[in-house]
């Protein structure tokens, strides 16, 4: 499992890459893409939408199921990665390159884990 050290992680399997104090890219982790399986469809919010820490901001669909994706931060959507709409497989191929949204004006975050703590948590989930 790939867990880059420079990122922060939410328990619900999203990663956060802070670009500055109030701006970040959000994506889903390697662990999550592996558990979901091959992704075939993704919804993305609109630029300008407000996202709230701990709440669902979009969903992804694999051949197995549709799954909600939670936002680890509160703020406003500044950009969405439109490339994913045509090719959601990018998330499977490169989960840390395939960011979903860029959030600006971040006012709040969920309790975020560092890479070690996140890996430990995934190992616990595996039982």
């Amino acid at each position: 499992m790939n867990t880059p050290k420079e990122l922060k992680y939410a328990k619900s399997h999203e990663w956060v890459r802070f670009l500055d104090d109030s701006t970040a890219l959000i994506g889903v982790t390697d662990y999550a893409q592996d558990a979901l399986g091959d992704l075939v469809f993704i919804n993305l919010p609109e630029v300008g939408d407000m996202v709230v820490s701990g709440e669902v901001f979009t969903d992804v669909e694999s051949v197995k199921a549709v799954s909600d994706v939670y936002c680890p931060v509160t703020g406003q959507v500044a950009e969405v990665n439109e490339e994913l709409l045509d090719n959601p497989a990018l998330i499977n191929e490169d989960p840390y390159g395939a960011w979903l949204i860029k959030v600006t004006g971040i006012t709040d975050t969920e309790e975020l884990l560092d890479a070690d703590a996140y890996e430990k948590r995934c190992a616990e989930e595996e039982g």
Partner: protein
Amino acid sequence: MKLIFERSRPGVRCGLLPPCDVPKALPAAPLRSCPPRLPEVAEIDISRHYTALAKEAHGVNDGFYPLGSCTMKYNPRINEEMAALPGFTGLHPLQPVETIQGALEVLCMAERLLCEITGMDAMSFQPAAGAQGEFAGLLLIKAYHASRQDTVRKKILVPDAAHGTNPASAAMAGYDVVSIPSNERGCVDLDALRAAAGPDTAGLMLTNPNTVGLFDENILEITNIIHDAGGLCYYDGANLNAVMGIVRPGDMGFDVVHLNLHKTFSTPHGCGGPGAGPVGCRQFLAPFLPGEQAVEQGGGFTLEQSTASIGRVKLFYGNFLVVVRALSYLLSLGREGIPEAAQNAVLNANYLMTLLQDRFDIAFSKGVMHEFVITLEHEKKRTGVTAMDIAKAMLDYGIHPPTMYFPLIVHEALMVEPTETEGRAALDEAARILHEILDRAQSDPAALHSAPQTTCVGRPDEVGAARTPRLRYSFPAAQ
């Protein structure tokens, strides 16, 4: 096998029509400029085409079909005979009511019997399938709140073990969906439900027994919590087969139900229809029912639509001949047979589970009703063999796989519902086959990754099909 277009030969026709002996009177405007590209085949080509297709399919008449939550029970032939009566098949939906008294009596009789089974007061046969029944049911709930000017109720509570159609139907009806977690016993978490229920609750959608096959032990408490909050309770009838004729959703506190006649009442499932998902309700919701209702009046039958109706959700009276089949089933089994079928469905599921549980992990095995869920999570870790591999291997033994990867709260899930129409020998054989597949999973996992070997299609490219679906036939360029 060949597609029907590949059987096409120019100039070949099916019918021998006499020459037209009246003047052609069609105006030119609506006529196509070129004929449609239909396959040109003789009747024998069509017969052979569909026979070939049927040979490559697997239905209940071919073998064991334990598709969880789908209730793939046998469809008795007498249902087909009744539905094929010319008095039914020759009807036109716009005939005057005095010429369709028998058909209206069928609707009234089926409504009365199904209301008796569900504890409801009225039922509409308009919805063509379960999901449409759910949607119509939610519109009843919405119409009820609107009629009381109670406009703040925006939320429908749905347990996380629900069928995927439940949240989808609620969203279609314009509601926000709130997911309620299950507790460690596989039932609704009452504290979470209490915390979620409030003045903004429009209603609850619940399947009982639920999708892990359990009858919720707190069902009365659950419906009370919702009613105390001012919401209504919706019963998804997908799993009614476990309890029909024994316990009634109305007595559990539900206000609206939908039934899947094509599951519980032995009408054919299939290939997109026709199904029937009638929606039933208690008296206070009856004025909102969709479309026209058949009613008994002055010794005969007529059709009526209430002014408060939510309107039609389908043309005319739903899939009428499916209702004829369900009525035939109800009358064949009768008051004793209906609960006995439910008891045998539960007995069969528990018998098969008992034959398997020494080697297969069962999620929530205590108090299982008509279906149970196997989890292959440990097998996947030990051998790399997944629920998908086991399901594909079953095809090589002539068994239709169980429902896979559902419910979502169980990982590597196989959801098994044998139904009441399988005998003990069939269940013993299915258990033997599953043990044999598990032996192979442990001794030669690679072989299972490449199953099935004997079917006309191996493993379809599901990812490719979902990402880049080809939905049109490409005609050869020469034509």
